[in-house]
């Protein structure tokens, strides 16, 4: 739960944390995130097999994957590998993509949006036209180009995804900043002599937090799936390293006969996105002083 505490304001962190915990749904979300993180970190110890181990008893005699049973908790895949093990190891990739890549995208998007929205003028025009350009360019193509230039590795993939995904966030943050910048309290700050940095980070940024949180939680599933697409096209995380996305793509042709191979990693992605959504929602309310006392 490091991400949650890190986002808490320096002011009264204890009480904000306590109020966060009081929300049951948020707690459920937090538990799910903790489980995912624990699974990823502890994979070598809790996974029953090695992630790329093709088990001799992992396929039927006809060569079809096995459905979930006592030995293979989530069944096996096309190559006779244990799906449970691969989901655990896949969590490492997917969490890094979902948190790091998505976080980087948010930071870039916020910086671009807030700068363009507050300064307007030629700075804003240049930044936003560039954003529009990025938006018009097919994201997948761009990702493929970038991934082809650099040697594919997990961190490069994360960077590529961040470079593709900041655009929408920048647009939304830009629009919101322009309207915030017109508000009286910003004018009041300027008449007090507040500098640009102070206004941007102390008075505008806190009001953008709800939007950033919503985009952040939405971005989790988008980025995890984008990684899967890239993997499928051979420019993402290289096999046999599992990720939740590439498990789906590897096995999608077997959807009819072995639906668990798609459903289980799919459910994992959805649960992760949902978990962040629940925590994000609660966080948004807890950080809003006008919502105090409604817990």
């Amino acid at each position, binding site marked *: 739960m490091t991400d949650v505490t890190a986002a808490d304001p320096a002011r009264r962190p204890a009480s904000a944390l306590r109020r966060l915990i009081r929300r049951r749904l948020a707690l459920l979300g937090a538990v799910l995130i903790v489980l995912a993180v624990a699974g990823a970190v502890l994979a070598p110890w809790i996974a029953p097999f090695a992630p790329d181990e093709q088990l001799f008893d992992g396929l039927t005699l006809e060569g079809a994957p096995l459905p979930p049973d006592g030995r293979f908790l989530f069944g096996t895949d096309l190559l006779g590998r244990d799906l449970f093990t691969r989901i655990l190891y896949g969590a490492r990739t997917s969490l890094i993509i979902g948190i790091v890549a998505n976080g980087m995208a948010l930071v870039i998007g916020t910086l671009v949006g807030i700068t363009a929205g507050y300064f307007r003028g030629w700075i804003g025009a240049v930044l936003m036209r560039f954003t529009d350009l990025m938006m018009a360019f097919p994201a997948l193509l761009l990702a493929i180009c970038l991934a082809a230039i650099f040697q594919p590795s997990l961190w490069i993939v994360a960077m590529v995804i961040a470079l593709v995904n900041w655009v929408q966030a920048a647009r939304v943050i830009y629009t919101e900043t322009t309207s915030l910048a017109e*508000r*009286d*309290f910003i*004018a*009041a*700050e*300027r*008449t*007090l*002599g*507040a*500098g640009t940095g*102070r206004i941007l980070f*102390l*008075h505008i940024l*806190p*009001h953008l937090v709800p939007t950033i949180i919503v985009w952040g939680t939405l971005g989790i599933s988008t980025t995890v799936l984008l990684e899967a697409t890239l993997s499928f096209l051979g420019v993402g995380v290289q096999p046999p390293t599992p990720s939740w996305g590439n498990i789906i793509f590897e096995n999608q042709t077997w959807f009819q006969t072995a639906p668990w191979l798609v459903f289980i990693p799919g459910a994992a992605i959805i649960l992760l996105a949902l978990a962040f959504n629940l925590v994000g929602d609660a966080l948004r309310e807890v950080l*809003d*002083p*006008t919502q*105090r006392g*409604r817990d």
Partner: protein
Amino acid sequence: MTLASDAETTGAEAHPGAGPAPGQPPVLSVEGLSISVRTEAGLKPLVNDLSFTLRRGETLCIAGESGSGKSITALAIMGLLPPPAVRITGGRIRLGETDLTALPEARMRTIRGDRIAMIFQEPMTSLNPVLTIGAQLAEAIRAHEPVSRGAARARALDALRAVRLSQPEHRLNQYPHELSGGMRQRVMIAMALALRPEVLIADEPTTALDVTVQREVLDLLRDLQRDTGTAIILITHDMGVVAEMASRVIVMRHGAMVEQAPVHRLFSRPEAEYTRQLLAAVPRLGQGATREAVADRPVARVEDVVVRFPLKAGLLGRTTHHVHAVEHVSFDIRKGETFALVGESGCGKSTIAKAMVGLVPHEGRIEVAGKVLSDLDGAGRKDLRRHIQMVFQDPMAALDPRMTIGDQIAEPLVIHGIGDTESRSARVADLLARVGLSADQMTRYPHEFSGGQRQRICIARALSLQPDLIIADESVSALDVSVQARVLDLLRTLQREFGVAFLFISHDMAVVENISDRVAVMYLGQIVEMGLRSQVFGNPQHPYTRRLIEAVPVPDPAHVRPPSPRLTGEVPSPVHAVGSGPVRVRLVDIGGGHMVASGDPAPALSAG
């Protein structure tokens, strides 16, 4: 109005058309009305056991401050309470023989607009911006009567004529944004009265309008009532409007009726303590205490200042027109005095304030605390904030909702690097005490305070740097009268304590007359009259000044307004093509520093 007046309403003579007929059954009667809102803590009452009746041809004013439940009562009568949280929990509303509280929504819809109509405060938001005026009027008519499009349009035209809108045929094809605020409100009245309803509910119909436009709209309502006999419920916070319009008055507070009386009795012999307080708090012209003229050194000097905003058009975005917001304005403000800028919306008074604090660029010379604004670099501009501060109109908007008020009051000190954490918090505590709040409220957020308290917080923030000059831009306009009176008192006290000068910007003549030492009247970006308060208010010379003073509603029902021509002229536009501009007026001293414009910035004025 052919109905006989009755002795019950004393002073019905002064209000032609306001005499209800006693023998008639009431048009509308409200019995024991209670409205509650559902909260997590259970039902919270908004209106408690309210009863009144309304007769044909009568104007009933519901007066009260914000939160008194007056608007919610109007919505209840219209059947427009926001479901499901707010509900009628008791009592009945009867229109003629029909009990409105028992009607299903489908039946209620046939009554709304047809038998009861409503006008809201903000005419822009109550008109659909993408439909023409004609389409909206015709739609309102056709919703209730099976007439053809052509017939509906003809009736729409009649309705626009009835509200004395200029060029009615042309208006039918215009969109709401092409009309001024006053014209829009007339369209709303036309729409409300097109179907000749029995009851018209007007919820603060003139609050968002300028005082001269308010005058036109009030005159219009009264004339229409005389012609049609519609019963009016007028909801207002302005006791001046009450005195002019009402035949009977209900004073409400915290959802309950405090007093109900004919208008003359309410103003001459108010029974409830609250009514007395309310009446005492109303700013009246001619109440300002005389103070000695301040002859100290000036803290700010504005010389020949011009502010124009470019309007760009065409493919290349060339500037084709300018909005001439401020045109060659000069004045100075002396240490410790209150200088008022008064005028109607769009006259450029707020733009001057923004130019003085550097929020908009200007031409000309502005000097504050001995420094010329345009000569200053970044550091100099920042340093200037120690001398000039601003208090905005809407205190909720001017405070950062996500920061505690203690942090916000201390912020100027942090920005300018004054003191350490301890001394700052001591200073904040002191400032809070000075503006009548307590130090333990420091850790609260703006939404936990009332409007008046928030404005006190803004004032404390402005004072924290101990400036020489505070610009108060409509700073009390959004407040209830009783709160307004207390904030004005506070400003006076603080002026004595700190020796600070105020630039007080307002559209409210009565407030300006109460607080200012010197006054400048602005019209279309120029000052048309300037002088000591006694000169401008005691001996107004410019026709616009006179018009402003005459338009102020007088909170005295016995007051007889001198006959003046109906005001129908629209304020000319401040937009001019590049190269041309408004006629420049010349101020002439007519004695004792009383400056009056000799040239007329708008020929329409003298004609109006």
